């Protein structure tokens, strides 16, 4: 029995037999067939093989293979629940991500002031740049002390160095407070202003009555460095500093009135329950995903 000269010729001849070649390839094969009798012979044998296979007797199906309702029980009900669980799992994951975003992204979580205060200096500096000269002039030539980081006067007055982030709402973090050295160490003593229930230092108070304004504010000011007492009076070297909060400097810059937030009950709720919410969402996501997988396997 003849064989083509090249192994690929079998594939070409087979495709030629079934009309699976392009017209150009068909012409090329025809030319070869005319000049190569062996190739023509191989094509004939392939054609003969195909004819034998096509003549294979067909068998009748021994029975009907139709399906009865008993063979496919409750298929639709199971299948309809699967996407529900899949969607619920995906939704739980999305909510989990959102909750993490509230925890991590600045500005979204009121309880994450330490992180939120990180990018603030540049903005606060702008505010201060506009307000500082004015405040400087009206404070009797004393250099102001500027604090960033939400020293809005709420919370228990704990030291930010010692307190965990967000433990005292509105507490200024250590990294968020910058102090400028005072020129007069005998000036009005600085007192922590972080946890005052009263309104914090405002632009108007800074401008009009520097001494009166700084006194209640300084009373609660937390030292940025060192180990000063929580509610005590600042060390001598830090007395006489004027502290300006971030919000007050921003308000100075933009001229907006400062709004002192009410004692944050909602924030406290979020701060206390965010972890539990995240754990719950994680459990829901895993549970729904497992349910969807199990249903899909059952179906």
């Amino acid at each position: 029995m003849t064989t083509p000269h090249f192994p690929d010729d079998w594939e070409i001849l087979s495709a030629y037999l079934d009309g699976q070649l392009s017209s150009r390839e068909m012409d090329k094969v025809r030319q070869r067939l005319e000049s190569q009798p062996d190739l023509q012979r191989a094509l004939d044998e392939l054609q003969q093989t195909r004819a034998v296979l096509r003549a294979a007797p067909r068998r009748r199906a021994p029975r009907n293979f139709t399906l009865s309702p008993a063979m496919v029980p409750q298929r639709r009900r199971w299948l309809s629940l699967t996407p529900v669980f899949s969607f619920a799992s995906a939704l739980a994951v999305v909510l989990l991500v959102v909750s993490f975003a509230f925890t991590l992204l600045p500005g979204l979580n009121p309880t994450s002031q330490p992180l939120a205060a990180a990018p603030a200096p540049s903005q606060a500096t702008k505010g201060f740049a506009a307000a500082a000269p004015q405040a400087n002039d009206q404070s009797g030539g004393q250099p102001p002390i500027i604090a960033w980081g939400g020293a809005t006067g709420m919370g228990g007055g704990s030291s930010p160095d010692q307190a965990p982030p967000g433990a005292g709402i509105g507490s200024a973090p250590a990294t968020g407070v910058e102090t400028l050295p005072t020129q007069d160490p005998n000036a009005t003593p600085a007192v922590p202003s972080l946890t005052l229930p009263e309104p914090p230092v405002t632009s108007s108070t800074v401008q009009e009555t520097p001494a009166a304004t700084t006194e209640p504010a300084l009373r609660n000011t937390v030292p940025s460095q060192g180990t000063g007492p929580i509610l005590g009076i600042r060390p001598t070297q830090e007395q006489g500093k004027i502290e300006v909060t971030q919000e007050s400097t921003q308000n100075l810059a933009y001229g907006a009135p400062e709004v002192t937030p009410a004692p944050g009950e909602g924030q406290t709720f979020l701060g206390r329950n965010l972890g539990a919410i995240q754990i719950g969402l994680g459990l829901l996501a895993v549970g729904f995903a497992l349910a969807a997988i199990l249903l899909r396997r059952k179906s």
Partner: protein
Amino acid sequence: MDEVALVRAAQNGDLDSFNHLVLVYQEMAFNVAYRMLSDEDAAEDATQAAFLSAYRSLAGYRGGSFRAWVMRMVTNACYDELRRRQRRPTIPLEPMDNEDEEEIESPAWLADDSPSPEQSLEKGELDEAIQSCLNGLADEFKAVVVMVDIEGMDYQEVSVAINKPLGTVKSRVARARSKLRECLQSYWELLPAQFRLEDEDKV
């Protein structure tokens, strides 16, 4: 109701519509399964499993040739059965020695009453000759040549059925035909006249 409407109704849970489709394709499915498995009972089971699988997977049908899609279910069911046989082989298909590939003269082999090619064709059993040659092919070649040459499916449909590119189908058809040609060589002279080549100069 045309096939598209039947498929759509079946996808919506209408079992009667699906059974209409089963009646259309069951003979083809059974023949493919029989050629793949070379056993009527196994082919029957595979065909039933294929239609059950098809019904359960209807949501995954995205159009195109429904026949090709059903044949994919059939070939998958046959592959499952062939894998099961490989895991639990019952009798050796050929009594070959692994080293020198010579036949072992075991009593079981000697007692084998399988008909020789001559006997097969003397009985008019062209069908058995074809099946015997098909059994010598690897499963993936067997599936392709059965669907193309015995069931008359085009390459595109077979490509869908085996979930392989068109070039793979083309290549497998060619190789399967080449091997079948060699196998059927022993039957040439006994083939019915319409299958004999006019020029009898074959070796």
